């Protein structure tokens, strides 16, 4: 009997099923770099918020309009740098895997990631301008987590548990309003770095 051939066939079937339906070139390094950028961003935001005022108890922090714009600026720069690095590392890995970067799988992944992410982002901007600043940090974490869970069907399955961890952290953060930056640093920084390292070890660069 030609056992070897059928073993090969079975391997080919599994490989083709995952290659044709999931984006498998997500690089662990992109998680690590996004986490580091997030930590730097959180540090910068921390400076903006706490350096320009006399703190009299953490609940009485005053944010001027100017500071809000500065914070949004920091957030945008952080986002752009993290995305650029992520795209760079993922492109490199896709080339190695001989997987096209822009195909049906990537498009499906991005669309499913972006639906909860954009909805949450817009909601947070609205809340920010209405003055509900304390809720922004928990909500961004929750929506980021939902986006990851939603996108995990189209990429490596570990993304799902990262998403669940982010949702849990976001819910926890609602109990510590005023410590938003700290939770942000944990969720977007530490968790991303930890997952990036795990993925890197499991799947290589």
């Amino acid at each position: 009997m030609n056992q070897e051939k059928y073993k090969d066939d079975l391997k080919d079937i599994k490989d083709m099923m995952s290659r044709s339906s999931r984006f498998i070139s997500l690089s662990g390094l992109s998680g690590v770099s996004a986490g580091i950028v997030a930590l730097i961003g959180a540090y910068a935001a921390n400076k903006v918020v706490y350096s320009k005022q006399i703190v009299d108890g953490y609940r009485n922090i005053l944010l001027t309009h100017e500071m809000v714009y500065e914070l949004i600026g920091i957030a945008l720069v952080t986002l752009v740098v993290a995305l650029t690095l992520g795209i760079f590392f993922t492109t490199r890995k896709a080339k190695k895997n001989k997987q096209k970067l822009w195909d049906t799988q990537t498009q499906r992944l991005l669309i499913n990631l972006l639906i909860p992410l954009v909805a949450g982002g817009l909601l947070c901007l609205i809340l920010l301008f209405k003055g509900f600043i304390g809720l922004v940090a928990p909500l961004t974490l929750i929506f980021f987590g939902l986006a990851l869970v939603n996108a995990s069907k189209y990429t490596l399955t570990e993304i799902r548990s990262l998403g669940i961890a982010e949702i849990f952290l976001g819910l926890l953060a609602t109990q510590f309003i005023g410590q938003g930056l700290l939770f942000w640093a944990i969720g977007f920084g530490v968790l991303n770095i930890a997952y990036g390292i795990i993925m890197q070890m499991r799947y290589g660069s």
Partner: protein
Amino acid sequence: MKEILKDLNKAFENKVRLGIMSALMVNDYLDFNTLKGLLDVTDGNLASHLRSLENSGYVTFKKEFLDRKPNTQYSVTDEGKEAFVKHIKAIEQLLN
């Protein structure tokens, strides 16, 4: 043994056809170029294997127009699904 061999499907012996079926099993639809990219084969080669799977009744297609360019979307039929699952089960039994 004879029972198992009966379920092994000649249509899926070929690597390209096996690849086409595997990809279509986990996607609702795939177009010609996506399949071509996944399998790394020439137009003619892919077309002839797709035709043979169509003739067996395992694969079906619908033509659409995307930006006025014809775009053929392939999908697996119920019959194709059944045959493919049988084929995989037979392989697994053989290997056990």
